[in-house]
């Protein structure tokens, strides 16, 4: 039998739930990853690896070697005549780059080159080697255009982009007048470079036609919108397309929209008459998917001489390519992090002829808090205040932009716990005052915050006659632990050993899901699974003629009153299916919801070379209920290390003459490696946020990145007195300001 659909809008705080009873005792526990044995043994198939051993063809992309042009001709004749080549796909419908997240379709090239490295064609051949070679035989003639490649040159043309992840402007009071009269005035400009998500699995797709029906295995984060983007790109009804992404080798935002591979693989498979595999090369990933915008950020803060903020401004310039209105929401946390009655937050979007910009892990905070949290440190020093005391002095009671209450906020506790664990009171008081051999030693801290979002998501949970459960939802696991936490939620709700729960994800044949992005996945998909389980609990209670609240489920047994009955006995050979859909509701409008944390860092800066080594890094986080201590800790390690990358290493360099993304591979775009990372510490504070989700949890994956980079550059200042405001803090920038010996 099947119970009715069960939709719940998050209109009010939930109060205590079955999860709080902890009867089965598995939620939150550090269970190993559900799919872990498959991954460590090489048996989890990622997109490209489907149809292994079958008769398939291989595609290789042809890309543009010019920054801006009209395409006069694309001559594919030599490529088509090359050995092993089956077909060449070219024309106006080739995708320019990735689709913007949640857009109905990706942009097409329409006879133009919009950025250096843009896709032009796909060569399909019997082997990968033949396709790759023939791709070099495609001859393109261009009518060169005038390209715009530098944000700095386009500031006069920058516009208000309209609402995106946030309102571009958040104004309150009289910022300019109050700042002009402030007893202490701080005014500095920070710059951050473009970043690449650089997930380890390059974007890849396998496409297979069966008549008019198309199956695509692709590396995607948001299947519900990705399948629409594929259907529109290929020109078929969405009902004819099935998209599968059971394992995704990292996303970090770069797979929120489809890459150019998915549509090309489908068009190629149609033309070749057999399934086609397309994996982007690493160079293609850098040049044809998406990237994070470079930013120019001016921070102005006016305070009293005691250090109370009276005026706060964070004004930002960011870029995107023609026709893309997405803007990096740089100051998304500045809106609510610190008090101050007079506020001015703005975002202006300029246009350049460079690869489109889109979300990269923690869009907004990842770069916005590099400047805000550096500014808070600089100002604290100027005020002769401890940076923690300065922040405490400006802790708001309600959200300072709109006076909404915080649903939960343990920021002060994060400071206290972190300071105590780190030994903050022992830090060097003055820059360049602690030396070990040829290294200057210093410490820095920063606050972390990340807005919480809940998204619509559906799931069904089946309870079989043998008492085992199966979870079904088109959610993805991009390394975040979705499989594992959904297993744990189901096991906790239904009182089952975790090994009795099967989880099926990553397939548009399953109930539609929020997918993975914006740190919303665990709580959105998890709440839908919670509802589906609740649906089952109601049915079980009905069959036992008890109130659901009087029914205890543990170890496959139902316990009600003085009875204890195996689930299989209640089911009597039947299979039950529970369904659940969560939707965001009024709590998102009546409360300000965010996760919080604090980072503490110790660095050593080489007095001779200017090299910075991170020696210790501690993050204390409060993000509501932690669903799996092990996977949550790992996600935070990831965030911390991305913070190290943004502070010290990562910079996607744009050639101002040609628009080429110069360092478009993993040798030249420096992401942190093992030797860059010390042993890290992550501490979670106990917290429940019952307005945030049915699980009382908040987003976590991006929180641990927000602010880390500033903790590092603040520590560099404390170590050697050099303040870097032009990220990343590479050796050349530090070296220039080092004190004598």
């Amino acid at each position, binding site marked *: 039998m099947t119970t009715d659909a069960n939709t719940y809008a998050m209109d009010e705080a939930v109060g205590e739930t079955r999860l709080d009873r902890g009867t089965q005792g598995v939620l939150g526990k550090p269970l190993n990853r559900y799919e872990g044995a498959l991954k460590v043994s090489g048996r989890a198939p990622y997109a*490209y690896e489907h149809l292994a051993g079958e008769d398939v063809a291989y595609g290789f992309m042809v890309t543009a070697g010019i920054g801006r042009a009209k395409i006069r001709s694309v001559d594919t004749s030599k490529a088509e005549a090359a050995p092993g080549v089956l077909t060449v796909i070219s024309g106006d419908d080739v995708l320019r780059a990735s689709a913007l997240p949640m857009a109905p379709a990706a942009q097409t090239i329409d006879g133009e080159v919009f950025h250096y490295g843009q896709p032009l064609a796909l060569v399909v051949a019997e082997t990968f080697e033949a396709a790759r070679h023939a791709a070099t035989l495609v001859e393109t003639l261009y009518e060169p255009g005038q390209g715009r490649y530098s944000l700095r040159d386009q500031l006069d043309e920058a516009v208000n982009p309209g609402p995106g992840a946030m309102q571009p402007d958040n104004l309150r009071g009289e910022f300019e007048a109050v700042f002009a009269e402030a007893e202490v005035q701080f005014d500095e400009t920070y710059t951050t470079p473009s970043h690449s998500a650089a997930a380890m699995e390059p974007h890849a797709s396998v496409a297979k036609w069966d008549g008019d029906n198309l199956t695509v295995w692709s590396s995607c984060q948001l299947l519900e919108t990705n399948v629409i983007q594929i259907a529109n790109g290929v020109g078929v009804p969405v009902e004819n397309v099935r998209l599968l992404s059971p394992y995704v080798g990292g996303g970090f935002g770069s797979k929120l929209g489809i890459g150019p591979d998915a549509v090309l693989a489908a068009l190629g498979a149609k033309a070749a008459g057999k399934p086609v595999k397309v994996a982007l090369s690493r160079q293609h990933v850098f040049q044809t998917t998406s990237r994070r915008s470079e930013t120019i950020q001016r921070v102005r803060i006016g305070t009293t001489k005691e250090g109370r903020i009276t005026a706060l401004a964070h004004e930002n310039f960011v870029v995107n390519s023609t026709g893309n209105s997405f803007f990096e929401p740089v100051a998304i946390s500045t809106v609510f992090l610190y008090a101050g009655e007079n506020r001015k937050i703005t975002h202006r979007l300029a246009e350049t002829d460079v690869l489109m910009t889109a979300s990269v892990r923690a869009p907004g905070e990842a770069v916005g808090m590099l400047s805000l949290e550096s500014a808070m440190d600089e100002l604290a020093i100027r005020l002769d205040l401890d940076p923690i005391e300065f922040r405490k002095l400006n802790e708001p009671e309600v959200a300072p932009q709109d006076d909404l209450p915080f649903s939960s906020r343990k920021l002060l506790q994060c400071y206290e716990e972190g300071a105590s664990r780190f030994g903050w009171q022992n830090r060097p008081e003055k820059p360049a005052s602690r030396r070990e051999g040829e290294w200057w030693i210093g410490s820095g801290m920063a606050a972390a915050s990340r807005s919480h979002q809940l998204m619509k998501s559906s799931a069904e949970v089946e309870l079989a006659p043998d008492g085992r459960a199966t979870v079904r939802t088109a959610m993805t696991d991009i390394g975040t632990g979705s499989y594992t936490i959904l297993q744990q939620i189901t096991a906790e709700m239904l009182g089952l050993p975790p090994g009795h729960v099967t989880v099926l994800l990553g397939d548009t044949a399953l109930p539609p899901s929020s997918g993975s992005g914006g740190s919303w996945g665990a709580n959105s998909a998890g709440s839908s699974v919670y509802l589906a389980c609740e649906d089952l609990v109601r049915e079980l209670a009905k069959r036992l003629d008890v109130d659901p609240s009087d029914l205890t489920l543990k170890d496959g047994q139902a316990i009600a009153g003085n009875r204890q009955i195996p689930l299989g006995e209640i089911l009597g050979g039947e299979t039950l299916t529970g369904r659940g859909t969560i939707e965001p509701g009024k709590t998102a409008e009546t409360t300000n919801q965010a996760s919080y944390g604090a980072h503490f860092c110790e660095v050593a800066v080489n007095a001779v070379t200017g090299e910075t080594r991170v020696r210790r890094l501690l993050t204390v986080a409060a993000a509501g209920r932690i669903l799996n201590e092990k996977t949550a800790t790992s996600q935070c390690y990831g965030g911390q290390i991305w913070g190290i990358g943004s502070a010290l290493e990562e910079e996607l360099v744009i050639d101002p003459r040609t628009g080429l993304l110069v360092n478009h591979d993993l040798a030249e775009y420096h992401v942190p490696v093992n030797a860059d990372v010390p*042993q890290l510490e992550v501490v979670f504070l106990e917290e429940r946020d019952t307005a945030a989700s049915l699980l009382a949890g908040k987003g976590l994956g991006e929180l641990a990145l927000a602010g880390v980079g500033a903790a590092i550059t603040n520590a560099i200042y404390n170590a050697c007195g050099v303040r870097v405001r032009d990220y990343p803090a590479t050796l050349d920038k530090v070296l220039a300001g080092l004190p004598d010996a």
Partner: protein
Amino acid sequence: MITLTVNDTVHELDLDPRTSLLDALRDHLALTGTKKGCDHGQCGACTVLVNGRRINSCLTLAIMHEGDAVTTIEGLGTPEALHPMQASFLDHDGFQCGYCTPGQIVSALGMLDEFRAGWPSHVSESLDGGTELSDEEISERMSGNICRCSAYPNIVHAIRAARDERADKGESEERT
């Protein structure tokens, strides 16, 4: 035709001479556990053992390995019977998305053999052996394997635990 010995199984293959060892494994032998992350020897996801030594399989042609013994992640253990290093990565959460993981695990085994053979690293105190396998040594020697999820701290824990467990059992130092 060439003969490739992979995980103790002999395969006869008719390959385009341009085929890398990595693509031979993935596209021609359906051994997709070995991953392609960059195809340029920059990320380490394609690490396999050739005659016991770790190499980037993307940087070598398949036809160069006639008669060599190639070991891939699939040759170490199965989901039901994991190799101790695989089990240690699982227990210590030495991965997230899992894409670089086969390369990390195979690389870790090759790295421990190099260490036992006395090979120094950039951070070794001495070039003549006698170095302790510190966390710093493990990190340095594993830095050819990039993990963008950044599971590095747990990768170090996993390798250390697997190595300590083997030392406790007094197992042979010869082969992993």
